[in-house]
């Protein structure tokens, strides 16, 4: 499936994005994954990054380009993206698990330690995720950022969570 057809980026579409880190960079520690695939006029991610790791430039319809060596995976760009298209992945979290940081504008918020469903780009449950952290400072302007631990093989697929009721 493709973005324009059903709303979910295909693996081929993802691979072609200038906001995707390399496999080598992913193996080195936390880094952003920018799933922004259409040339819409928007650049808050560029201004949000304290390290100059995201470049949009002029015109502002350019796709964001990731300078992966400058990215520290701090994640301040996640809540700044109006399209909620930015995630931070840490493949080095543990032997079996990786972490995913994602924006989550829903109530109730999960709590640290909760087990939740890890959902992929099409909303399908693909794993169990453990909530490590819930950040919701004023600076994020009501876009909380959730950090979850998931099996490593799910890290590039999990993009949402569902709270278990």
């Amino acid at each position, binding site marked *: 499936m493709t*973005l324009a*057809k059903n709303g*979910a980026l295909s693996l081929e579409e993802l691979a072609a994005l200038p906001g995707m880190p390399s496999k080598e960079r992913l193996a080195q520690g936390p880094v952003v994954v920018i799933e922004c695939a*259409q040339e819409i006029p928007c650049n808050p991610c560029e201004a949000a990054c304290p390290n100059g790791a995201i470049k949009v430039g002029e*015109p502002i319809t350019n796709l964001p380009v990731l300078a992966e060596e400058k990215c520290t995976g701090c994640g301040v760009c996640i809540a700044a993206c109006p399209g909620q298209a930015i995630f931070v992945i840490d493949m080095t979290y543990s032997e079996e698990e990786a972490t995913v940081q994602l924006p989550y504008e829903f109530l109730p918020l999960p709590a640290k330690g909760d087990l939740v469903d890890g*959902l*992929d*780009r*099409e909303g399908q449950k693909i794993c169990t995720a453990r909530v490590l952290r819930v950040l919701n400072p004023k600076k994020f302007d009501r876009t909380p950022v959730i950090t979850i631990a998931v099996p490593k093989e799910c890290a590039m697929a999990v993009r949402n969570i569902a709270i278990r009721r």
Partner: protein
Amino acid sequence: MRETEFAIVGAGPAGLSAAIEAARAGVQVTLIDENDKPGGQLFKQIHKFFGSKEHYAGVRGIDIGVQLLHEVETCGVEVMLNAVVWGIFADHTLGIIHDHKNLHLKAKKILLATGASENALAFPGWTLPGVMGAGAIQTLVNIHRVLPGRRVLMVGSGNVGLIVSYQLLQAGAEVVAVLEAMPKIGGYGVHASKLRRHGVPILTSTTIKEARGKGKVEEAITIGLDEHWREIPGTEKAYQVDVICLALGLTPLSELAWMAGCQFDYIPQLGGHIPVHDANMETTVNGIYVAGDVSGIEEASTAMEEGKLAGIAVAEALGYLSAAEAACKKEVVLRRLDELRSGPFGGVRKQAKEQLHQQRCSQ
């Protein structure tokens, strides 16, 4: 008869921005709105806006509204609420019903920033309670915090349909599907992705066929379309829903511009009949300007920039800004408009706008 220098009809993003620009330059501004609160649709926009910092990117529409209202208050704009402009006459006089009384307001310059109305779609059962426009749902959910139903079928995948679907999820409703008659999603991919990762199906080449129910919507029937927009028999599907939301685009609210004698052009990419206007937002009738959705359906971000342009142009025409000062201010705004109208989504609108400007200039 009352008099003012600059009357603005409509206190949405375009009208507010025009009022601020003109008042800051020293113009006496009267801002008129039929609602009991200014802000237009901004206060329903609880999502973060796109654009760059200069376009309030990353700020939620509702917060932009608060900011603009504050600026309007501090720069001495007269705001006339619960005021319906029912007519516009020669010599720039507006007929207004204000607090149940009729009054006439004569202005040197008039800006029509009247916005747009939603397009509807007629299908069997469309008059059943539960079939409603996306604007009504945004008002209910985001302003009054009332959920119109539990299970919603969204018709239309433009940005409005996608954003309202997301807001319905946030409010606790279930969106069973988003339908799109075209073979591809109309709005931004990022808005679509936000829905997809919650499991909401977006069905392209699909439309609504019928709403069924006793006294209210209980079931929606959808059907697939072929490449010629013809229904494909046998592709009907039934969804148990209590709300069918129509998000099928907007049409400029241009009655006052027609009444004023403005020349129009039909530009489908901009939503239909559009008053021809120049780069100052002035129509073919001297002293009457348009900005925002009435001058072509776009977004709140572009509406604010167009409002600023009109405000600057009026201040210049009334002698509050020199030609050089105005040119300098306009250049900044035009550059920002250019940014917003670039790329695969905005480029179409840029071309259409230029077509309108050329017509106005060739007269």
